[in-house]
Each structure stands twice: as C-alpha cells, then as structure tokens.
C-alpha cells in the first residue's frame, strides 16, 4: 500500500478549492468603507461590514460586501490572524447560505404523519404558545428531565444550555459526543487539560486520524503548509490518500484501528533509546516505570505486523520526533469518534507527547490561553421531583456530565429507562444526518410527544419534528462574544452584528428562548439583551468592545509560554498520568493496552467503512449549499481498484453498500488511493428531507449504514466500527 503513487497534478486537479483559500488580496479591498473613502478614488457603492463565518465551527473573521442591503461577496478579515487572513471555499460560499431558497421562512407546524412532509405555516405567537404549552405538559407528566435539549456548535448554543438549566432538565447533549469527546477524555485524564497544538512553531508533526488539509482547522491547516516550507516534517498516517497525505512530507497507509500499536512502538523506541526528556519525565509525569515495562516488548517489528508500516519507518519516525522535541508533537486531532476504545487510543497519543516534554513549549502542546471573558451568572431553580441525574448517567465509567452521550441517550429514550424522556428541543444540530444508525434516531423520535427544531433549513432532523422554527443565518444576527483558541498565539475574541436585516420571519434562538422563559415562568434567566450580555462578558476587558467594533476581532493579553512550569497538572497526582491511577481504581486499563481491531468478513462484509471530510463539506450543514454542491454534488464510495476488479465494479458504477444497520446506493470511485480493506464515503448526502433540494436521495447516507457503537469509557460515538459488503447494483 505504501507505494501508492499519485502525481501532484492529479492532486491539484482533484483538490479543487480544498485547501486553496481566498487570500486577502489588495489591502484596499479589505478596508472598511470609510477608510476607502478617504482616498482620492471614488467610494464604492457597497458597504463593508465585519462578520464571523458560520460555515463550520472555526468562526473565521470576514468582511461582508453589501450592496443596497444585499450581500454580494464575503472576504477575509485581514486583522483576523487565526485564519492567516484567508477565507476557505466554504467561507466564500456563505453567501449562498443566506440566500438559499431552501431556507425555512416561517414557523412550520407538522400536519401530516411524522416525516411525511405535510406542513402548515403558522405565526410566531401560535408557535411559541404551542412550544411553551408542550414543555409545560411534559414537565408535569414526566418531570422536567423529560425534555432533552440538543444544540450544535454555535455562539448562541450557550443560551440553550442556560434555558435547559433554568427549565430544570439535566438532559443536554452537544455535538461533542458525536465528534471529539474521546480525545478530550484522553487528554483530560492524562494531562488534566485539553491542550492546543502550537503547529506554527513545530518542527515535526505526526497527523494520525486527522486530515487537517481537508477537515480545516484554523490556523493549523495553514500552518502545516507553512512549516513544511520552512523545513518541518509532517507525517500522515491514514488508510486513505487524503489531501493531507498528498501534501505531507510522508504518508503511510496504516491499517485502520491500529494507531495505538504505532504510538506504543514509538514510546518503546523513545524509552529504550533514552530519547525522552528525562528531566521533564522525572519531574512532571507519574507512572513512567510502569509505562516502560508496558512497552518493553512492543517493538517496531511487532507494530509492523499490526499497522502494516515497516518497522524501520516506525523506529525512524520515533527518533525524528524525539530529535525535534520539544518543538514536535503527535497532533491531538479533533474528531475522535472512531473506535470503541478511542479514549485509550488517544491516551497513547497523549503519552508519546508527554515523553517529548513538549507541554507549554513552542511547537508543542500548549494549555488553552486566557480569554479574559466573564461568565454571566444566573440562579436556576431546583426541582425536587427530578430524577437523580441524566438519562444516560452511569452508562459508561467516565461520561462528561455536561456533554453526555447522544448514542446512549438515544438508546435510553427508546427503552424509556431509567425514566421516560418525551420532548426534544433541537438547535442547529442534525442527528438524523450525523448520528450513526439513522433508523435508531428515527425510532427515538417516534417515542417523543413533542419535538421542536430551530434551524436555518429543513434539515433531516427538522423534517421529523412537530414544529420547526426558522433561524436567521449568522450574517443576520447579533451574537455574544466568543473566544477562539489559536495555539501559542493566544485566544481571540469575536462577536457578530447583523450584516443585513434578518430575512423571512426568522428569529434567533436567543429571542425564542427568552420568549419561552417568560411564558414558562422563569424570565429572570433571560433578563438581558445581547448587548447587555456582551457588556457583562467583557467586564474585565474595558477596551475590547471598541476594538471589536474597529477591527472585528480583539486579542486579549497573552502571557508567554512556560507559565505552567513548576505548577501542578490538574490530575489526581498533580502530574501527567502516563499510568492512570483513576483508571486503575475504576477497573479500567491504567495504560493503553493494544487490542487488534476486529476483522470483517461475515456475510461478505469485508470492508471497514471510514468517515472523513472534503474541504468543501461540513457534514450535512453544507452539502445543500448551491455553490459547494458544484464541488461535491454527491458522495461516492472510494473503493480500491484491486477490490473493485474482484467485485466486477467499474468506475462510476452504482454499488450497493450494506451493513447490519442498513444499506445505500452510490457511485463507486475506483481508486488506488485507499487500502483494499477499507471503503470511504462523505457524510451529508442521501438526505430524507423534502426541504433539501440538492441532497434529498442523492448519493448514500453514511448514517443509514453505520452501526450504533460507542466509546466504552466516555460514550462518544464510534463510527469506524462498521464492516460493509459492496456489490455492483443488480449483481447477485
């Protein structure tokens, strides 16, 4: 596999707008209007207004060019350093999110069967009255924990959490348990913190289970390219030849599910050859001797048999990584919803980082930088009749109480145990398109008495609701201050003011919740407007508001790195826990113990299905975008050319992909760019919603095929644990 050969031209042709981003070109074009007018040139007819992108979670600063109240173009905000003065393809396509004819325009009440698509447009008064009455009813019949609140990554999602607490429900899920929770779990349990990678100053980066050139994270994606130009090395481990693989210094087509073997072998080399930071390990870590004994037999030769990567390469990479330390790292990654043992896999990533002594050092892993923001406190009532905890409580050993597990919550709603959960408030998250095993999500919804979705478009989840409330796009609303982390450079603060007036009858979720809080008898939880809320958030940063208005971004003071030297880590031992005493006490493996991944084969299911990203797709939230769908009009099944030959599948043939959970049909992309034992497809296609004109029934839905599995320690979904069969449509 390691000799897959893809030419650079081939990559560029395929990449399209992937990593390419619109540079902030002429400074003139980037300046707000008044600055332009000062010159001799005639003032343009358009206004320039600061905004913050919402096409993914990065929230890059932008400048909207507005002509007679209509947004014509989005440009990067050159003062927004986190995106290195760029706006990606999705960011540019944000205009079409605003003017998408598929937007929900008025409150919509379901009048037919659930999912049938029969709706009646109603007014806001009726919609809010209905919503409040249903929530009151559920509280009376099932206690307040009978309502589930789910909010996606959005600057107003904090208001959903606030509302849930004031209403009295413990059942809140975010997108995290369908995404990054295993990585957070692993780093909290090892370092006591979720660190930020300082890619910009790094000399050696191992990207394993992260495709940073397509799953863009600013500034990391840009910085990876920049540091390679300066001589740094980036090593990619991926069963697919992704854009990251194509652009990296080297790529190894690792067997899926074996990353831990690679990391443990790296630890073996670094320890046996005494390449680790001995002073750091002695002073700041605990359990080194146990780790050394644990990896003593886990040689690169052993790991070669597991990973498929030559032992000599593993040993060399480990030595190179250590030689570049502390300005080197195993990149922590983000989406870690892979395997049932993903927390332990990511623990092995954390442990190799600890051996490098890269904590709080340039080019290593740095603690989150201070933001200066204040919380806005309130006093939520306590309801004595509530059950003791979340509906998914105690389902796994180390659930994050404020995140929970969507997959387990869904299971418990279906079972009606430990208590019934009958209402669901959903804001800007789309589990019907993002949670594995779509039939189960549907089954969960069928157990509900009331479901309300607040969103911009009629997502697959909204399509199943009783009531859909139209939200404005991010360019039409005022938002609280949001802090964004950016490695060692420090945090930055952004906010949003409307670039244009809200379209249609849309209302921000803040206003919806404020109105509902009054109707439900707890108006004090929302006794502010956004302007006041921002003031309270910025109470310790008196100059910030003025600078945000002037520049569209504010950089709070950023102390130099090394500030945590000599300070205890936030772990029970106050050190980095190579060996986790907490895990030992709980009966969990205290060191990551490698288990070979399961193998497929049953009923012809020989391929492991893996998920991933294109730089033009933010899961189901962007695939229906008119501009982006030109780049990714449908998903295809990446199928290795040798496997395709064996199956008699030709380029572009429609194939049927089937797992125990479900099946789908899509075109095959026959390619050398994927291992023979692995297949891949994009998420966000094969939609069921009649409100998504570009994706309904187009391609296959990955969540229809993925089985419902979860991380045994933290409950994060595990979406690389499904094996599928593939056959040409119509073949026996």
């Amino acid at each position, binding site marked *: 596999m390691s000799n897959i050969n893809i030419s650079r031209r081939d990559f560029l042709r395929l990449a399209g707008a992937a990593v390419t981003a619109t540079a902030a070109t002429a400074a003139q074009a980037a300046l707000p209007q008044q600055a332009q007018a000062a010159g001799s040139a005639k003032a343009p007819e358009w206004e320039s207004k600061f905004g913050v992108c919402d096409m993914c979670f990065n929230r890059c600063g932008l400048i909207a060019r507005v002509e007679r109240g209509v947004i014509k173009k989005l440009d990067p905000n050159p003062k927004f350093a986190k995106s290195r003065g760029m706006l990606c393809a999705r960011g540019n396509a944000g205009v079409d999110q605003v003017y998408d004819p598929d937007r929900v325009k008025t409150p919509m009440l379901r009048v037919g069967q659930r999912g049938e698509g029969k709706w009646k447009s109603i007014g806001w008064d009726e919609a809010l009255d209905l919503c409040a009455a249903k929530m009151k009813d559920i509280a009376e019949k099932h206690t307040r924990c009978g309502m589930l609140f789910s909010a996606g990554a959005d600057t107003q999602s904090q208001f959903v959490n606030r509302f849930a607490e004031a209403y009295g429900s*413990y059942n809140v899920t975010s997108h995290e348990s369908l995404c990054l929770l295993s990585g957070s779990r692993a780093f*909290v*349990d090892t370092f*006591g913190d979720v660190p930020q990678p300082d890619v910009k100053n790094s000399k050696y980066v191992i990207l394993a289970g992260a495709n940073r050139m397509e799953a863009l994270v600013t500034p990391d994606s840009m910085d990876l390219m920049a540091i390679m130009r300066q001589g740094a090395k980036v090593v990619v481990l991926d069963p697919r030849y992704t854009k990251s693989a194509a652009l990296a210094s080297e790529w190894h087509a690792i067997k899926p599910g074996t990353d831990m073997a690679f990391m443990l072998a790296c630890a073996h080399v670094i320890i046996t050859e005494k390449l680790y930071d001995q002073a750091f390990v002695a002073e700041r870590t605990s359990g080194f001797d146990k780790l050394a004994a644990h990896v003593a037999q886990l040689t690169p030769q052993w790991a070669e048999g597991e990973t498929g990567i030559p032992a000599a390469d593993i040993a060399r990479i480990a030595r190179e990584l250590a030689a570049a330390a502390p300005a080197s790292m195993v990149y922590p990654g983000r989406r870690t919803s892979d395997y049932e043992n993903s927390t332990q896999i990511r623990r092995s990533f954390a442990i190799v980082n600890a051996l490098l002594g890269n904590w709080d050092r340039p080019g290593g892993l740095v603690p989150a930088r201070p*933001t*200066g*923001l*204040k*919380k806005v*406190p309130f*006093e*939520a*009532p*306590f309801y004595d009749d*509530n059950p*003791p*905890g979340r509906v998914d409580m105690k389902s796994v050993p*180390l*659930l*994050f*109480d*404020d995140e929970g597990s969507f997959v387990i919550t869904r299971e418990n709603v279906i079972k009606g145990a430990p208590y019934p959960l009958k209402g669901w408030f959903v804001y800007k998250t789309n589990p019907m398109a993002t949670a594995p095993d779509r039939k189960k999500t549907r089954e969960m919804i069928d157990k509900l008495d009331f479901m309300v979705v607040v969103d911009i478009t009629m997502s697959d989840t909204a399509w199943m609701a009783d009531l859909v409330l139209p939200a404005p796009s991010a360019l039409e609303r005022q938002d609280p201050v949001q*802090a964004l982390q950016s490695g060692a450079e420090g945090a930055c603060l952004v906010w949003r003011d409307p670039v244009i007036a809200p379209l249609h009858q849309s209302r921000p979720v803040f206003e919806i919740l404020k109105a509902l809080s009054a109707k439900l008898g707890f108006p004090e939880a929302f006794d502010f407007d956004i302007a006041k809320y921002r003031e*309270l958030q910025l*109470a310790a940063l008196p100059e910030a508001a003025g600078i945000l208005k002037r520049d569209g971004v504010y950089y709070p003071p950023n102390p130099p790195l090394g500030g945590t030297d000599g300070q*205890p880590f*936030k*772990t*029970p031992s*106050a050190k980095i826990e190579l060996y986790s005493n*907490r895990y030992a006490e709980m009966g969990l493996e205290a060191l990551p113990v490698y288990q070979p991944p399961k193998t497929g084969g049953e009923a012809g299911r020989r391929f492991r299905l893996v998920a991933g990203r294109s730089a033009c797709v933010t899961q189901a939230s962007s695939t229906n975008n008119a501009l982006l769908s030109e780049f990714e009009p449908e998903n295809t099944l990446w199928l290795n050319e040798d496997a395709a030959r064996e199956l008699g599948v030709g380029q572009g043939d429609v194939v049927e992909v089937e797992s125990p959970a479900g099946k789908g049909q899509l075109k095959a992309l026959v390619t050398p760019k994927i291992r023979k034992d692995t297949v891949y497809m994009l998420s966000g296609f094969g939609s069921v919603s009649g409100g998504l004109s570009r994706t309904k029934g187009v391609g296959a839905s990955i969540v229809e095929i993925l089985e419902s599995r979860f991380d045994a320690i933290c409950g994060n979904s595990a979406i690389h644990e499904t094996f599928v069969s593939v056959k040409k449509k119509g073949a026996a």
Partner: protein
Amino acid sequence: MKRSTTILSALILVLAVVSMAFAAEGNARKGKYLYRQKCRACHGATASDLSPNSKTQAEWKKAFAKPEALKCFKDWKGVTPEEKNDIFAYLHDFAKDSPSPAKCN
C-alpha cells in the same frame, strides 16, 4: 476522664472521616443550586471568582473537613448538614482534577 476524652475525640474524628466519605454521596445538582443561593453572594457575582474548578478534589475535601477554619464559616449558619453535603458534592465532583471539571473561563 482524660482517657474517655481521648476516646471521644478519636470517635469524633472517625465519625468526621466517615461523614466526609458519605459527603461525596450528596446531591451535586442540588449542591450547585445551593452554592449559588448561599455562597455566591460573597464568592463572586461574576461566578468566575470561585467555582468547583478553583480547587482539587483533595483541597475541597480538606476545606470541608474543617469548615470552621474557613474565613467565611461565620456565614454558614443557615446551612444544614445535608445542604453542606450537597454543596461539597458539587464542588468536589466538578473540581479541577475531577473526571468532569466544571467549565470556566
């Protein structure tokens, strides 16, 4: 007499340790509510000055093992033993080195 005092002290100590062991069984959710009601007036209206994340689990245990040593103990008059347990459970369960540290800025 002296001996019985010693035994009594030892017994009190044992009871104190046992009660602290039970304390973690307090209702952390109710503790959050009670903390806001009874503690936050002094400990930070911005909620950033003192939170579960301000101390480690061991530090919270130490503080609650001998609350009379705390400067604010004089203001604890209206707090029942059960409420104290709940507040402790909240602070302890979401301490900075806990498995689920409270999120703060």
